[in-house]
């Protein structure tokens, strides 16, 4: 094991936790949108996010991650979802692991044990970003209004994830199922994205899911 300081960063004492969209009070908006809304937004909050960096060409690194996470190391622009866990390619030497909230400490320990003395870095970034899940028949229309990237299924199949410009900022778009897309957003931009999504999906109808 390395001398990296690994510790439980999530309070286990039942301390109050707020997502970066807490102020928008999404819970109070559930069921208030139009019937048959074209876009449904769901906040996937307070999950465990870990960025993993290492040499993707090193078979020992790939095998170690596979062993610890149970998911093969994804190649360029890929996201692999397995149950509540997902592993995503962010760059040639950088991946993002998302686990259910509270499991990130154990996941980090598993990874460090499996990767041993390899030249790696694992950082818990759970507090810095979160996911907004968009689903419904009109999500692609909203994405087309927001980004210059081609989101047609021919170019953007399920299982692909790209970092790109979106509205006036940037984020990562993940295509997780036929009509389901996830936006990986920075916490300081949460309010902007929420306002943007309300505006961009108004014409199709927006509903909020808990």
């Amino acid at each position, binding site marked *: 094991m390395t001398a990296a300081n690994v510790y439980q960063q999530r309070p286990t004492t039942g301390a109050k936790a707020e997502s970066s969209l807490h102020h928008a009070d999404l819970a109070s908006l559930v069921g208030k949108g139009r019937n048959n809304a074209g876009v449904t937004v769901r906040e996937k909050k307070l999950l465990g996010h870990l960025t993993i960096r290492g040499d993707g060409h090193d078979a020992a690194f790939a095998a170690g991650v596979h062993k610890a996470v149970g998911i093969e190391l994804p190649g360029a622009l890929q996201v692999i979802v397995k149950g509540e866990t997902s592993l995503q390619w962010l*760059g040639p030497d950088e991946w993002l692991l998302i686990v259910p909230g509270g499991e990130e400490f154990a996941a980090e320990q598993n990874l460090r044990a499996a990767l041993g003395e390899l030249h790696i870095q694992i950082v818990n970034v759970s507090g810095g970003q979160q996911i907004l899940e968009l689903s419904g028949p009109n999500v692609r229309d909203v994405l087309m209004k927001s980004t210059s990237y081609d989101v047609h299924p021919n170019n953007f199949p399920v299982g692909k994830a790209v*970092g*790109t410009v979106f509205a006036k900022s940037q984020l990562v778009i993940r295509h997780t199922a036929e009509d389901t897309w996830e936006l990986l957003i920075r916490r300081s931009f949460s309010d902007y994205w929420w306002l943007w999504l309300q505006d961009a999906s108004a014409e199709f109808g927006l509903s909020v899911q808990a």
Partner: protein
Amino acid sequence: MLHIFCPHCGELRSEEEFHASGQAHIPRPLDPNACTDAEWGDYMFFRDNPRGLHHELWIHAAGCRQYFNATRDTVTYEILETYKIGEQPQFTAKASGEKV
């Protein structure tokens, strides 16, 4: 809007995802203390400003956040190739008969 091929993402992306970071292939002197002021100043501040082919450093800021090199024609803005750091360009001013 240009489309630029990111050698890491392996596909063409919109220009707005990228930033240019100046001239490429500028090695840092191995022993800065042994440099004269002129050499160090040259390394720090002086850049080529060619008319024609230019090798440039770009970063895919909104995507994979990696640097890579591009060979660009400063007259037509045509990007002839992009390649990873550490690789050598296929297109050079010499090969195409222009003065560097």
